[in-house]
């Protein structure tokens, strides 16, 4: 096994599927010669040729439409949106078209498209690069939305996404790309979509998170441990559909929960998670379920983002409120 960063694991997943299935195509802006602006597709064009790994003109809606069209001729497009803030340029293809492909053809056709994109804050990008827009796509039935938090998960989940018959939005948090390494098998393996993972076991409170907030939640759990509280950290991994079973099982065990997201309070996934808990496990709760989120402004300018983003201290503080309720 090799030690890989998340971005290496992502490249490896694409390489594996390009090798395994000749219908897999990788394309987007600057993914070829440049290997992507983050180097996620580094070396793939060299290895698989320009027929299978290629640059497109600079138009996200074009890339989205191309993917839908290619899927109609039997290909499995893996398209890159250079930054997820550019989702708005391709939203019709993703939410308006690919998501309903299966429904509008009475199930005859599907759209086995993987839409990869970096997102997430804390790396001082210009406007419209870091925004957490997962809530926008997750609110559209017909799309799966996957957000890994570790290199191992990233490879297994991305391979599943490429193999999936539905459109899958696969979001890669920029801060996690190179933040740590992990053992990642070189061969093919899959992690099922729609399955959460308990990243740390605990008995007093459940912290539910995804993406970079999983790492912050793990730090918070350490801090809570020093104060004598045992926190369980659930990594959603797929934010649409939610793994309700894992969430409820954990809440029924700990009787307390908080939900953490990097997105603004009014956006994103957390509100959905809270609703599921309220509908299914309200009688197990010893305290209200609280959220840790960014405040309700647009994503701020680079120099102010670190005061705006939620962090481990915010999570610890909110967890204590719930524990002391």
């Amino acid at each position, binding site marked *: 096994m090799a030690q890989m960063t998340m971005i290496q694991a992502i490249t490896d997943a694409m390489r594996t599927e390009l090798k395994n299935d000749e219908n897999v195509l990788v394309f987007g802006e*600057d993914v070829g010669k440049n290997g992507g602006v983050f180097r996620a597709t580094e070396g793939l064009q060299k290895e698989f040729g320009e027929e299978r790994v290629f640059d497109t003109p600079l138009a996200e809606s074009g890339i989205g439409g191309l993917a839908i069209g290619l899927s109609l001729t039997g290909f499995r497009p893996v398209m890159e949106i250079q930054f997820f803030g550019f989702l708005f340029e391709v939203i019709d293809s993703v939410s308006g078209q690919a998501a309903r492909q299966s429904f509008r053809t009475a199930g005859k056709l599907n759209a086995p498209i993987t839409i990869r994109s970096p997102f997430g804050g804390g790396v*001082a*990008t*210009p406007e419209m690069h870091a925004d957490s827009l997962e809530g926008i796509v997750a609110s559209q039935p017909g799309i799966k939305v996957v957000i890994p938090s570790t290199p191992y998960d990233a490879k297994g989940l991305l391979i599943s996404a490429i193999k999936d018959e539905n459109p899958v939005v696969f979001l890669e948090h920029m801060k996690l790309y190179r933040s740590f390494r992990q053992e990642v098998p070189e061969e093919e393996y899959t992690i099922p979509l729609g399955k959460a993972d308990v990243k740390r076991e605990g008995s007093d409170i459940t912290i539910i998170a995804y993406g970079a907030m999983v790492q912050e939640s793990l730090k918070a759990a350490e801090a809570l441990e020093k104060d004598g509280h045992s926190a369980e950290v659930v990594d959603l991994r797929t934010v649409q559909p939610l793994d309700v079973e894992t969430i409820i099982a954990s809440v029924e065990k700990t009787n307390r929960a908080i939900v953490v997201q990097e997105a603004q309070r009014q956006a994103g996934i957390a509100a959905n998670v809270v609703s599921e808990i309220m509908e299914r496990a309200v009688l197990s709760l010893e305290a209200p379920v609280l959220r840790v989120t960014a405040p309700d*402004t647009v994503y701020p*300018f680079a120099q*102010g983002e670190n005061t705006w983003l939620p962090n481990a201290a915010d999570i610890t503080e909110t967890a204590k409120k719930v524990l002391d309720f």
Partner: protein
Amino acid sequence: MAAKKNAQFDPVNTLHEIEEKFDMFQILNEDGKIVNEEADPKLSDEELTELMERMVYTRILDQRSIALNRQGRLGFYAPTAGQEASQLASHYALEKDDFILPGYRDVPQLIFHGLPLHMAFLWSRGHYLGSDLAEGLNIFPPQIIIGAQYVQAAGVALGLQKRGKKNVVMTYTGDGGTSQGDFYEGINFAGAFRSPAIFVVQNNQYAISTPRSVQTAAKTLAQKGIAAGIPSILVDGMDPLAVYAATKDARERALNGDGPTLIETMCYRYGPHTMAGDDPTRYRTSDIDSEWEKRDPIVRFRTYLEAKNLWSEEKENEVIERAKQEIKDAIKQADQAPKQKVTDFLKIMYKGDMPYNVKEQFDIYTEKESK
């Protein structure tokens, strides 16, 4: 078997005929000689000198910005060297009350339109005070979403027209930007409404790593304007006189009610795409670089002005020293900006009454920030 030619119709020929029409318009050649006397805009000596000063200033600003970025004293920065004529000579044809809707690389034009330098630096650092625009400064902050400024420019142009203003809007994008739907929509709208807009396409050969040849099958980008039914021209973007003359002409047409113009400026970006990790050696060779350096707008304009006794080494050094000093002062001023607070963000976003739940957030952050 070759396709049979039909004598009655020949779309291939139509395409070729249109493409052939787009010769590159040039006035001042690479050796600093006037090669197109009739088209010379005949700028006064003062104007010629001022345009040169702006280009030299911008080259220094570029060098200093790159250095400051490396020292961590600036944030986002997109280099401009090689594009001075394209940027500043086009801007030089505008009047103060004209509007500019810039792309992310078009900061020099904003500065010469009146954006204080320290604000450009604050914008680079990602501070909202960098976009706290003064009353009457008719610009938008640099646009990050490629193409968005093109459709918005169509809107500004229509607004100016409806208000009966004798002004135009100028907007910029790159060769890559011409692939976006917004590009086509913008030029088409302005054409349909015959609005006073000037659309500049700065063809610096690359969109990040993607060469122009991968961007489109079209032989020129200027010809795309023809499809929208608007006058379009391909200009040597490293020739300040040609860029100026083409823009001036477009402005006059716009003010006469004759609608928008598309100008493709053929140029080159010497540096990386931005300072955020782009490595141009991955996608272009030093041979190509030096080929384009021979066409440098500053070198050729210097030669031209020196022959007219309008420029000297001494004069150039004065501009360089002034630029360096102003940059130093502006950085100091930018350093004095207050730290951004979440409460500021909330206040800016929610003018008037904050909704109940936002007010609650405001109170929480007020307390946090007072610690």
